[in-house]
């Protein structure tokens, strides 16, 4: 690539991947729902940047559309929808934890180390020099784990959506890092599904709020056995 040297691209990808991981960890330590959504938007924006760098560095032009979709859908549209949801239902913005912040962050550190070893074992199967972008595989696996962790330990309905979307971002990043993304038409279909899923969950948040006067999933306990 004439414009920017490949090693510069590699460095930039590393920086953005680190920033993505930082947003995921900050989400875990955040108490405010508004902050959750902003951090997620920032995370998606960085993700879009990584995708653009893959286009620049490796000439995978089919990722271009996926990169723009990431920024348009995940960094702009979904955060806007979720912000409107919070405004409309005027929820108490404090998030309750079932595990406190210090313990959560320690667990996250553990997950990052675990992800790195899983990523190494996946990449070890490749012969020859792996491209720089494959280094971010460990970040992507860490995001899936952190997303799952958010869903299991944070009690608001909206935090569950953010947790799910963080997992989803992790999966997208893993696709970028080891396969330069899926075929375009598949990526587009996946974005479509995510959009619909967020809209449906958004509608349910309204309904849960209407029937329970709260959107804590703690009140969703009537179904047992």
């Amino acid at each position, binding site marked *: 690539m004439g414009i920017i040297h490949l090693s510069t691209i590699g460095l930039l990808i590393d920086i953005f991947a680190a920033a993505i991981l930082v947003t995921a960890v900050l989400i875990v330590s955040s108490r405010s729902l508004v902050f959750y959504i902003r951090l997620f938007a920032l995370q998606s924006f960085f993700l879009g940047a990584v995708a653009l760098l893959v286009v620049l560095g490796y000439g995978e032009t089919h990722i271009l559309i996926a990169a723009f979709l990431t920024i348009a859908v995940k960094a702009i549209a979904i955060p806007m929808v979720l912000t409107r949801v919070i405004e409309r239902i005027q929820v108490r913005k404090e998030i309750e934890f079932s595990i406190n912040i210090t313990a959560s962050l320690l667990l996250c550190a553990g997950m990052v180390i675990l992800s790195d070893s899983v990523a190494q074992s996946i990449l070890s*199967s490749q012969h020859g020099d792996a491209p720089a972008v494959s280094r971010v595989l460990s970040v992507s696996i860490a995001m899936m784990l952190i997303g*799952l962790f958010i869903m299991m330990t944070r009690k608001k309905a909206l935090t569950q959506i953010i947790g799910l979307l963080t997992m989803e971002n992790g999966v997208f990043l893993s696709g970028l890092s080891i396969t330069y993304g899926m075929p375009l038409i598949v990526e587009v279909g*996946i974005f479509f599904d995510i959009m*619909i899923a967020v809209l449906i969950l958004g509608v*349910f948040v309204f309904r849960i709020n209407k029937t329970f006067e709260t959107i804590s999933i703690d009140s969703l306990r009537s*179904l047992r*056995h």
Partner: protein
Amino acid sequence: MSMILFSLLLGTPIAGSILCALFHKRRVLEIITVTSSGLTFLSAFWLMAKVMQETTLHSPQGWWYADGLSAYIIIIVSGSAFVVALYSIGYLRRQIYKRKVDAPKLWLYYLLLNIFLFTMMLVLLSNNLGFLWIGSEATTLATAFLVAFYERESSIEAAWKYVVICSVGITLALFGIILTYFSALHVVPASGNALHWSSLMLVAKELDPAVLKLAFIFILIGFGTKAGLAPMHTWKPDAYGEAPAPISALMAAGLVNVALYSLMRFYILVDKAVGGGFASTLFIIFGLMSMGVAVPFILLQRDFKRLLAYSSVEHVGIIVFALGIGTPLAYFGALLHLLNNAIAKILLFLTAGNVRMAYGSRIMHKVTGAIKVIPASATLLILGVFAITGWPPFGIFVSEFTIISAGFTSGNIVPAILFVGFITTIFVGFIYYTSRMVLGEPHRPVKGSDADSASLLLLGLLLGALLMLGVFIPSQLQQCIQNAVNVLKG
């Protein structure tokens, strides 16, 4: 030629959805939905005939694909959709009469039913594993509002749980698919095809086994969640319990088989690539776990529809277990069981709907003496329960017996003994509860009436089919299953 068939199977439910979106009259919606599901069902038979001649069908660029396995499951799924569409007519009319459903709700129901059928066909006809994933997530989204249909607190809770748990599962499966793609990128010549199942099968031996093993674990968790394998089954009793009876029936008879189909596709691929009993051991473990987990919940159950949901967890376990045994006889048993279970689940969920509507409750101890109140549905219920718990002369007896003997002859003695233990215990629980519901005197006078005679006739036909499958298996069906077994053998 094959394109016409693919277009028919995918296009009919799309056309049905568009037409439903345009019209609002009850009568028109009923006709559209019955026609679209009926035409899909007919096309499925055409597909089967075609597959019998040509073994596999491809669209020109390989995005769509069908073989003996997909044709067989498409017949079961589209047939279930057709039966459910027919039953929905009477069911929703009664709901409207009782003012539980209004016109916009009715419209939404038929619209989503058509979309639901389309998303299932999308999974079953996709050759591209990315499309298969998109279709699977879309089945969850299409059914979300159907589960929340009655808008009670509990149904919104169930729908929330359903969408969140299934989406998490399917997100993990997507990572598994990406890993599969990764293992194939350097092997499949044209990398655009590296996500096509049929291309992957051609080079299965060259795929990296270590990566594929990890991929299979994620895929098993992901599609296992969709199928309701333990321990990822927790959404199932809530969703099946809260959804309208015909929707629960279609989820238990259609959607479950769609998820099992996805698992089978990956199972065939990974078994061929990795070998060494890796995938089959996991299947045996998860299959037995699902059966075992269902036991206590069936023995201590208050709610009839949740009882059936746990029965669905059990039977998914039975099928996955049989696939794990992995001999041709076991495959035959698994595929026959797929059909038997689908028919029995439709019969039981729809009959449960009748009972519920008559008594206004699905709590079992509030329902007694059904044989005096709604004799037809009560008879169907008790016979259906005998069928689902594996009594002769019903079909499930034959398929379970086939699976057990395949288990013993393949040397899996301990798993096979556990299998027998689980189904026997579950039988006791089932018979205990249903006999109390059906026999005896009603606690209080019940005003409710039974379903209309057309609906009851439909249920009678399902029972007749189960009876026939227990006595003899027509040679055409045998041939269909044999073709599907050949696909499973890889």
